[in-house]
């Protein structure tokens, strides 16, 4: 069990986006701000849509720790509170990286984190790196 958890926390993460909206390079602080729902639109005006792996998946667990510095419960509570304060829209959560990537490829303004290399979606480099 411990080895599974350690492995889950160590999964490399790739930031992927639709070709419309997100820049090809971002600083980690900007990425974090976007993924916390603090930005509603990209500079070109496209609405930001966040796509994440479900928090009970290994990828979702890595995202909670590496991006949000939260537990799965804390992240779920964070989004629930934000949505019902009327201050943001919740991310779209997926069970698999392929579903997430397909959604991002079809959705202008979408950005997400995947545990694969990105498939047909555009990879966004963060602080000059392709993986987190």
């Amino acid at each position, binding site marked *: 069990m411990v080895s599974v958890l350690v492995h889950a926390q160590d999964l490399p993460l790739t930031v992927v986006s639709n070709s419309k909206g997100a820049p090809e390079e971002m600083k980690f602080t900007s990425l974090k701000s976007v993924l916390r729902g603090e930005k509603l639109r990209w500079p070109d005006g496209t*609405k930001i849509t966040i796509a994440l792996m479900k928090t009970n998946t290994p990828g979702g667990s890595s995202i909670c720790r590496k991006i949000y510095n939260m537990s799965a419960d804390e992240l779920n509570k964070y989004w629930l509170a934000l949505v019902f304060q009327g*201050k943001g829209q919740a991310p779209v959560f997926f069970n698999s990286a392929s579903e997430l990537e397909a959604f991002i490829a079809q959705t202008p303004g979408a950005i997400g984190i995947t545990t694969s290399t990105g498939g047909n979606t555009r990879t966004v480099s963060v602080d000059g790196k392709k993986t987190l």
Partner: protein
Amino acid sequence: MKKFALLFFLFCILHTYGQNTTIKGFVDVNTLYQDKKLSFNLGEQDLFINSELNDRFTFLGETVFKFSLQSPTTFDISIERIVMKYNFSGNHNIVLGKHHTPINYWNDTYHHGRVFFPTIGRPLLFEDNFIPLHTTGLGIQGQNLGDSRFGYDVLIGNGIGSNDFTDNDKAKSVTVAAHIKPIDNLRFGASFYHDDISAGAKIHDGHVLTHEVKQQLYSASVAYFGKKFEFLTEGTFARNNSDSTGGQNSIGMYAYTGVKLHEKFVPYVRFDFMDYAEEEIYFNKNDAVSIITGLRYVINYLAVVKLEYQYQDRKLTGSTSKVTAQVAIGF
């Protein structure tokens, strides 16, 4: 023709965009021990609807079902929020409807779902109707602007004494609020509220105001909810001016702090203080000091159990103490 154009416009919005609607509920059940008597009581059942009509237009509805002796069924339905929001640019929105008045952190952050409250109930600032909880009106708001994550709200509404259907007078309430979040989980906020409350207006607890009151509320708050430590303090200075008694100054505040001993256990304390001016004609003048100590156990993000002891000393009603347990869930 105008009706047809409006219907066509709405049809286009809904038809060309995959409408995304979320429905969620919250409820709490409490057990109270006071005056050597144990009581069970139902809290509020809170129903939320959040809907994205298109990529700029969203809707938030909050309806509460709650106990009320005035109702023949002993339960009332109240619309707590209806917020239509139009995102006109970046992080700037126009909001229309019935809002939680963005006067302080608690009212702007927590809704009626107790699962999010750090304590079982609201501070005395709320119970004493010291601040206007809701405003029906039109506003503009911005959030997370710049490095300091500056946010603002400007809201014009019907004001105190009005209802959700009509204003009782010509005066409009004005709320202006600003906050910054210099680091994650830390928020500093301040606000100003002004309203001319007419003589004859029905105010808190059905009380009828005998003279016009010009009310100004100045509020400030500091909130920090970190990984180990939680701190929230807010205060409101109220200046109520009337022809009969002149300007009267009252103050209400509270301070809350909690420590996460473990992700699931949070012991906490809250101190409330209310001090009313002697010549005050708007408030109930029931000065208060209250101390709460409690323990919060987080089962998960949708289920929280709290156990609390509260001692309260009131100028008019004397001292009371009680023990309350609450189970609050989201569903």
